[in-house]
């Protein structure tokens, strides 16, 4: 009709990039701030390694939580489930109170337990229509209770078990370099190859210079990170686990049918159902995936602590949700990205670690953590979807200005 609608949508991708950019800016500002507060130690290899290690468990949970939230659900049980999986693995390995199994058997069993319990919660949500909030709130208590039983003696894992290395060891420096460079090369090849293929098929794609600058920027970040952690002891194994999980979930969310269906279900369940999507199965699937990740995170937690305790992973469900939400995941469902969640996790980790260094009182740390969450989401909503009163206020202000 009129060409005004031709312009409507074209701004959207730019907007999304702006959002990620603003997160990066927030991160940089925080880093500079803490650098000034803490001193040169803050940018040391040790500090980087610690930052990347501390965020592992709940960032793995946050990545799963992103997909659960995207599908229009929520999972409050993951902290307890993490603890239960950690306890399961620990009791299976521990020779005194438990079975003394090898970690190679115990770890898959623990992850399987997580997957099955997650799937069961999904089953109750999808087929019995019990809201996931309720089901997983139940799970939150049930799994914690089971953990207390399973982890009654707080079983330790013997030093000789290979799983302990995941929690304490570092990838040798030269292998770290190989991993980093390989990651850069794979990324470059994939991006250039898809871009070339699109060009061949005459599909619109990013201009070459943008693709290349993307590759250069990300390669620099990766290599700088490897350089930094290598100045200390190298890349922590657990950080590597986290990156593998993040990349896998990134691909699931972007390039698979399952991922696409989750966005559709969370965006409009009725439309998804009428489009022939088997909504129930996908919801069971996403909760099973979440449970599996809780298993993985549980195993990592166990490795970090060389055993399990009754209160492992307390509040982690909330950290996970917070990271996802700071990263732009909408609690209404249908919106959210793994990359955003990773940045959200980084923001959370930076705040937590930075305050640790500045030896802020514990109570104040919690206050700041909570405020950062509300502030980050609040700013996002105020810029993206301002409430009517704010729009009116702005309108009046602009009218006043134009008169003056």
């Amino acid at each position, binding site marked *: 009709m009129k060409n*005004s*609608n031709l312009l409507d*949508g074209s701004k959207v991708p730019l907007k999304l990039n702006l959002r990620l950019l603003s997160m990066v800016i927030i991160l940089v500002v925080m880093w500079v701030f803490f650098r000034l507060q803490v001193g040169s130690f803050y940018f040391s290899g040790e500090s980087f390694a610690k930052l990347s290690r501390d965020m592992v468990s709940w960032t793995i949970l946050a990545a799963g939580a992103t997909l659960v939230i995207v599908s229009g659900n929520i999972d409050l049980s993951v902290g307890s489930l993490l603890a239960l999986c950690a306890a399961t693995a620990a009791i299976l390995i521990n020779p005194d109170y438990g079975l003394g199994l090898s970690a190679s058997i115990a770890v898959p069993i623990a992850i399987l337990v997580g997957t099955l319990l997650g799937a069961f919660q999904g089953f109750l949500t999808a087929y019995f229509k019990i809201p996931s909030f309720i089901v997983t709130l139940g799970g939150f208590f049930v799994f914690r209770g089971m953990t207390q039983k399973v982890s009654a003696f707080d079983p330790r894992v013997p030093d000789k078990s290979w799983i302990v290395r995941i929690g304490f060891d570092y990838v040798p420096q030269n292998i770290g370099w190989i991993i980093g460079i390989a990651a850069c090369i794979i990324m470059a090849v994939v991006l250039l190859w*898809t871009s070339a293929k699109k060009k061949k098929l005459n599909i619109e794609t990013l201009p070459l210079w943008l693709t290349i600058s993307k590759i250069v920027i990300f390669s620099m970040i990766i290599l700088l990170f490897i350089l930094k952690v290598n100045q200390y002891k190298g890349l922590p194994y657990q950080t590597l686990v986290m990156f593998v999980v993040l990349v896998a979930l990134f691909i699931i969310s972007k390039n698979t049918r399952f991922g696409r269906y989750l966005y559709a279900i969370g965006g*409009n369940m009725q439309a998804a159902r009428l*489009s*022939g999507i088997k909504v129930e199965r996908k919801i069971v699937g996403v909760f099973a995936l979440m449970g599996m990740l809780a298993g993985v995170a549980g195993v990592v937690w166990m490795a970090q602590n060389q055993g399990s305790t009754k209160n492992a992973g307390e509040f982690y469900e909330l950290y996970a949700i917070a990271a996802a939400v700071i990263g732009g995941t909408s609690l209404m469902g249908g919106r959210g990205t793994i990359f955003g969640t990773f940045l959200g996790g980084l923001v959370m980790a930076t705040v937590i670690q930075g305050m640790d260094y500045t030896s802020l009182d514990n109570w104040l740390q919690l206050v700041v953590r909570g405020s950062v969450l509300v502030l980050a989401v609040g700013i996002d909503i105020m810029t993206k979807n301002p409430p009517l009163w704010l729009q009116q206020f702005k309108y009046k202000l602009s009218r006043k200005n134009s008169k003056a």
Partner: protein
Amino acid sequence: MAETIIINSCEKNMTEPILIMQDIVKDFPGVRALDKVSFDVLKGEIHALVGENGAGKSTLMKILSGVYPHHSFSGSLTLNGKKVEFNSTKDSEKAGIAIIHQELTLANNLSVAENIFLGDEICKFGFVNYSLMVSEAQKLIDNLQLDIDVRMEIAELGIGKQQLVEIAKALKKESSILVLDEPTAALTENETAHLLKLLKELSAKGKSIIYISHKIEEVFEISNRITVLRDGQTVKTDLSSNWNRQSLINAMVGRELSDMFPKVQSEIGEVLFEVENINVKHPQIESKNILSDISFKLRKGETLGIAGLIGSGRTELLSTIFGAPPGLRTSGKIKLEGEEINFQTPRQTISGGLAFVSEDRKNSGLVLGLNIKENISIVHLNDFCKFGFINENKEILKCEKLFDQLDIRASSINVLVETLSGGNQQKAVLGKWLIKQPKVLLLDEPTRGIDVGAKVEIYNLINKLKLNGVGIIVVSSELPEIIGICDRVLVMKEGKINAELEGGSITQEKIMENAA
């Protein structure tokens, strides 16, 4: 081209206009919904506002009620001789304008009395004086000679009585201007007569009423003046006595029906699709059926219309056939090309070759947060997948093809569908179902709320599918549309097929006769 006569001087016995809307212009992305519309209402008159769907009636009323705030359109509102600016519905309510929308805005779980006083409860120190509220509400209801116990829950009342409660609620606010948007669409003849009588009494008491309706007889019976809108412009305002049925229809349509509905002669072939003996229970009321004993056949290349009032079971029939019944289906079979197919879930019917463009594109047709490509490819995503991974290039190429064919107006297929205009959204819905040609296409209100240009494009598309031998079932509230595009029409009433019309017997009168 628009010939506008604003009558205030030539009126004899009526006073000054209580409301004047002057040169209203309202733009939506891609569409000018109102183009310099002027409209006025005199004290104590009933002024009918008519026009086809999408002519701009609802938009005009939303401007009057403050749904679209003052700065979102241009033009002026004058109430009782003073310029007014409404920034919200609260403002217009305060100024004495009450709107009764087509979709009722009552809280189903509350009593009639609570609804009437909603937001304005009789309170002392924050505690509701329930008994006083009930007696006041009952007084109001009795004054209107309505036979309703105000302690009953809204859900227990029929749709007709709910409509009357809505009017009572509006009157309680002592509004001087009452706007009714299609108030009789869901009413029986008796209820309609009662409502019209009530409105006449109110106007005699000095209330001004703006009456929006599709039903021409009602409009002539009740109104003092009639304004016709078409494509966002005022065609004409004149005394009801100066209009007649034909001139009114001509003014509304503004073109020969044949231009609007380019009919093609398609070869109507053998029986393609059969529906046998479908019964579906009401989801809440155990003893009631939403659909009873529905059976019909559809031939290749045939367009079958389903007409009926709102709530007659049209939409429910389509969604049941598609495998998404609104209640428990107790019996029924469907056969495609002679073979029975399961219709437990949409997946089964889609694999069989059915496609369903649902009535409400925002609630059940599109995922607004996804882009055009992702919405179009969702139904047959499998075709672009290998081992669960989406082949993005294949998907893009196919979706771009449809994007061009359907002439969706957006800068690219990566545009979010929530930013598209209604017509383009509807094309996106069609796109997702036509990505693979279906055998049977179910269309529920395919042209609701979209502009005329897009409508014609959709009719042309339907014709093209017809020629390809697709069987099409159309549900529509717009009778001209049903008459214009259908080869055969089933008229539904209270969950049953009440009549079957074919060829020359498909007329507006015949349909209404069997629907009401």
